């Protein structure tokens, strides 16, 4: 059964107010087309998670759609601190989000535990720091410090996470949802597989036979996937290996715009609210900056040697 639909349909059908979302894209392959659609549809009171969050999470927070953030980090990379994140925490604009703080070891381990059906998982970080002294909405269930039943040593346990929906962007998928990715993985695989439903956004939809030619690249199999959306340029201003580079110039524009509340809303109006979909977004990009700068982001071809799975 084909699961191919538009991003608008996927977000409208499978993302609800109050949902807990894993949004893939640790620097690599952020599902920006879907994030913009969530903002357009105004999904509210979301809980969002990913290790190393960036401009995409900052935008959702600034748009007022986030109630809770299970996070490790949020910044604009070379462009510094997340402006909307700061305004939310420091000034309550548009409201103060609740943050449960973990690390880039403990959080992906919690997602891994979720993906493996484990109730919790021991981790060897966080102890002795103020990360143990601050507990937000997870309260006493943020962690448990126990004496190991094996050797009696202090051992930190953190709970499994099972998001309602995972949204990821990958290079290619078939119409059934078998999703293939290459390049820096971040916490995409564990995050997607921990979730109850997965929305796959991809650069191209390929035939099932193409998937079968190199099946080791599949990170999520079809039965976990509820929607497949073809969104070329769908991670912009982030990058997709083999397709296009990070758009650092655009990242700077977001930083400049999000310096003020007014600038941020003008940015959202121009790039999200007044834009119906990613195709129009790409057209707007080319109209505004020219075909040259758009083309310049395009990746060069440098194919690997083909692999053979024959026997």
């Amino acid at each position: 059964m084909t699961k191919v639909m538009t991003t608008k349909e996927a977000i409208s059908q499978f993302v609800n107010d109050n949902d807990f979302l894993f949004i893939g894209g640790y620097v690599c392959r952020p599902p920006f087309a879907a994030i913009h659609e969530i903002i357009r549809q105004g999904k509210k009171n979301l809980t969002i998670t990913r290790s190393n969050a960036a401009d995409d999470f900052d935008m959702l927070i600034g748009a007022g759609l986030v109630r809770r953030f299970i996070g490790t980090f949020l910044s604009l990379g070379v462009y510094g601190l997340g402006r909307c994140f700061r305004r939310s925490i420091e000034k309550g604009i548009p409201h103060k989000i609740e943050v449960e703080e973990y690390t880039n070891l403990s959080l992906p381990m919690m997602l891994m535990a979720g993906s493996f059906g484990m109730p919790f998982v021991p981790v060897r970080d966080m102890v002795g720091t103020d990360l143990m002294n601050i507990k937000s909405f997870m309260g006493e269930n943020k962690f448990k410090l126990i004496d190991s039943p094996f050797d009696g040593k202090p051992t930190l346990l953190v709970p499994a996470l099972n998001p309602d929906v995972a949204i990821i962007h990958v290079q290619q998928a078939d119409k059934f949802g078998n999703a293939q990715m290459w390049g820096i993985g971040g916490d995409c695989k564990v995050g997607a597989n921990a979730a109850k439903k997965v929305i796959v956004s991809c650069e191209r939809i390929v035939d099932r036979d193409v998937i079968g030619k190199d099946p080791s690249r599949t990170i999520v199999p079809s039965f976990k996937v509820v929607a497949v959306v073809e969104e070329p340029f769908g991670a912009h201003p982030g990058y997709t290996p083999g397709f296009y580079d990070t758009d650092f110039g655009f990242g700077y524009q977001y930083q400049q715009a999000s310096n003020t509340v007014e600038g941020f809303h003008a940015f959202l109006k121009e790039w999200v609210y007044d834009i119906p979909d990613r195709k129009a977004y790409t057209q707007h990009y080319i109209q505004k900056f020219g075909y040259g700068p758009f083309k310049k982001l395009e990746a060069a071809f440098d194919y690997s040697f083909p692999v053979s799975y024959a026997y």
Partner: protein
Amino acid sequence: MSAHPNGYIKPELMACCGAREIKNHHVVIVGTGFPAMSANIAKHTHAPDAILMQESGVVDARPKRPALSVGDPCLNPGAAMVGNLLDIMGMFLQAGWVDVGFLSGSQVDKFGNINTTAIGDYEHPKTRLPGSGGANPIGSLAKKTLIIALHDKRRLAERVDFITTPGYIDGNGARERWGLPANTGPECIITNKAILRFDKTTGEACLESYHPGHSIDEIRENTPWDLKILENVHETEPPTERELEVIRKILDPHRMISIYEKRGYV
């Protein structure tokens, strides 16, 4: 430009100080900027077999431009391995394979604890910072952590506002009491004025060397705790000709490292 004898700038000296802490065959987790520069200087000089990795999942990258983030596109082609976050943070770092980690912090205290979460009260911060990211697990689990910091009374502290990443916590064996692995923890703080090395027993950072042009008195005045002076205190060795050649000809022909001068690393 600098007034130093062979024309080096302070960020170059600091990068070399980091490089000298890396031994051949070390496994090193790097970020961007100083750490990447330091590790690459080491690889091109005394530690050709050091293995660099980025927490995002990359081992032994061969970038053709300086990486601007730990997940930068240029880290993909040419790497020995591109996996995921848990490969690096779990399978390598947590499992004890990482020798050296590099960290910087908005605030660092005398026990090497680092704050990257919030300046001021956590609930009502003056400045909300990004958070731990990979810093806490690196500081918890790498055998040696090198800390880069600006040397003034705002960045260095008797006690950080918030311990995001553990150094020696309260000192005197606190890491072990919390269950952190033995023989891990901060090795030194490399500042723009000095190298402060940790006394592994007390957990305190002590003055080991002062960079050319700086005095012990000046450094003590700019350190917010009663800084102990190691017996063998000496002037930091300036960058060698070979180190400078590696930086300027191979690693950073466009002199991107000079942006650190604008950030106060002078």
